[in-house]
């Protein structure tokens, strides 16, 4: 099917999840992703699947844990304040090796913040976020089509690695309406012999992230460490635009990338050789591909909707030889192409 449908970002995630075989959705209302929850409340029963509006995000993430532990593809969606509440659950799921998809449609913060889009949860999503040693694969869509496609990829990666996966759009993308090509439903799903499905004709399964004796727990955490190494090696995804002759490369994801694209076109019209490097996986961060660019371009300009979180990973990847600047917005306000262009001009002229 290659018909195009006009769809809002939040809805595209929901439909992508359904196509990926999401069996259970648990969520709590919070702006700016309420449309996702409302859409699921209608569609999941239509598909014969499970929907529960929970009493809190705490409850939601723990329901995801229960459903996923029993072998179902399960997801929840929330925004930044709710994502903070879910860190405990995510740590438990990472420790117990439970696959799940968690959507955080980021909004202005900190605190209650506002309902505009932002990228202030980058650290929280990519550095683990909850307690203990773990990381979550973090996918950053930059278009409504990617909201659907990366939602489907999230379920596949979660099952592949038995790890939660974060889908990290922002509020602007959640509300954006763009044409989308509907994908084919997923029909094959991996076996889950570890799941708790009732001990019929097999020894019992236990799902936990605990051992009283540290000597017993360390081997389990070692497994997690090795898993993360595999993820870092195999799952990096990124996109480069007009990099070949660029002397200034912007680094951006999500809505900031969209503004940066416009600014890049404007800059090119002025004859400035500008390119964009877009990470699609924020974890694992495309460290090596970005590092390789440090030999090509002199200037790097990070565009993000936060005080400066992505820029730290960019600086780490590039090393000390590159000049890295920041043009940003925060507090729930979008960044305009004009602001970015002004920064480009400041650097290049």
């Amino acid at each position, binding site marked *: 099917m290659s018909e195009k449908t006009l769809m809002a970002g939040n809805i595209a995630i929901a439909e992508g999840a359904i196509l990926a075989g999401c069996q259970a959705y648990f969520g709590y209302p919070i702006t700016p992703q309420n449309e996702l929850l409302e859409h699921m409340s209608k569609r999941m029963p239509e598909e014969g699947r499970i929907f529960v509006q929970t*009493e809190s995000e705490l*409850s939601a993430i*723990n329901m*995801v844990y*229960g459903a996923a532990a029993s072998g179902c593809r399960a997801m929840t969606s929330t925004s930044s304040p709710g994502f903070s509440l879910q860190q405990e659950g995510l740590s438990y799921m990472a420790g117990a090796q439970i696959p799940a998809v968690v959507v955080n449609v980021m909004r202005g913060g900190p605190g209650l913040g506002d309902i505009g889009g932002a990228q202030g949860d980058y650290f929280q999503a990519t550095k683990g976020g909850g307690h203990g040693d773990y990381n979550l694969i973090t996918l950053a869509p930059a278009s409504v089509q990617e909201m659907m496609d990366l939602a489907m990829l999230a379920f596949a990666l979660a099952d592949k690695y038995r790890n939660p996966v974060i889908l990290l759009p922002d509020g602007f993308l959640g509300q954006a309406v763009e044409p989308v090509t509907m994908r084919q439903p997923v029909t094959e799903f991996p076996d889950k012999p570890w799941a*708790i499905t*009732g001990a019929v004709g097999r020894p*019992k399964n*236990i799902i936990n992230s605990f051992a009283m004796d540290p000597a017993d727990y360390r081997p389990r955490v070692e497994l997690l460490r090795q898993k993360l190494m595999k993820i870092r090696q195999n799952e990096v995804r990124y996109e480069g635009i007009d990099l070949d002759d660029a002397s200034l490369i912007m680094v951006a994801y999500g809505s900031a990338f969209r503004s940066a694209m416009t600014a890049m076109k404007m800059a090119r019209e002025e004859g400035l050789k500008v390119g964009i490097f877009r990470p699609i996986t924020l974890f694992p961060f495309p460290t090596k591909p970005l590092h390789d660019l440090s030999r090509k371009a002199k200037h790097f300009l990070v565009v993000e909707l936060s005080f400066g979180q992505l820029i730290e990973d960019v600086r780490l990847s590039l090393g000390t030889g590159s000049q890295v600047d920041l043009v940003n917005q925060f507090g729930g306000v979008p960044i305009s192409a004009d602001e970015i262009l002004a920064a480009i001009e400041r650097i290049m002229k």
Partner: protein
Amino acid sequence: MAHTNDKELETVLYQRPESMEAHPFHFCPGCGHGTVFRLVAEVIDELKIRERAICVASIGCSVNSYEYFNFDGLESAHGRAPAVATAIKRCHPHLVPFTYQGDGDLAAIGTAEIVHACARGENITTIFVNNAIYGMTGGQMAPTTLAGMYSTSTTAGRKPSLAGYPIRVCEMLSTLEGTAYIARVAVHSPAAVRKAKQAIKLAFRTHLAGLGMSLVEVLSPCPTNWRVEPIKAMDWLEKNMLPYYPPGEYKVIEAVAALRKEVSHA
């Protein structure tokens, strides 16, 4: 064991239930958990649901629950067990997930989860072990600690003006539609233990019949943190806890009352 075999004495009257592992308990001498685990395991054997049972363990002395039962189990974060069990039941209606929670897990950090599981009428069972103290962490005040009672965080005795009043969980939850069977029992004497088993069995039968939320609160001794010997702890429970937490059935919908006639023995 000096006694020799007599042919006529071949019958085993009592032994470890199949649903219980041959696994050393970490519990203290005289702890009520040993009893309650046994009762749950016996009920699951008698109802023949071992292969469908899912133990949703919680945080506290109950944390190792899944090690002691001979069926699938999982840990849950502190207080969240009812949410975890809800999801398992919704996704797999044929499974029998039950939560096994203490007073901190259920009545402190987990109040939202248990209230809403009851309000939604989730078809799960909760075994709530109330010993009026925090066991695993060394004896601090629990939401169910009695007024005037010693704990390591209320060393002068719990003062309601500062630390509030103990919560009566059964009374509170039974006001919620969606609950089908709410009962409070105790395990301080053989007769009480027999009644406790009946209540637990009826709770699981409620679950199997799909009638809504079932919860059994079990008043249980904690000799270590009450700082009394096991035998004295039984007296302490009878004297101090029963008056404030009266045993009894707090919610029995008609359909459950009909089931009750089929629950026969301890």
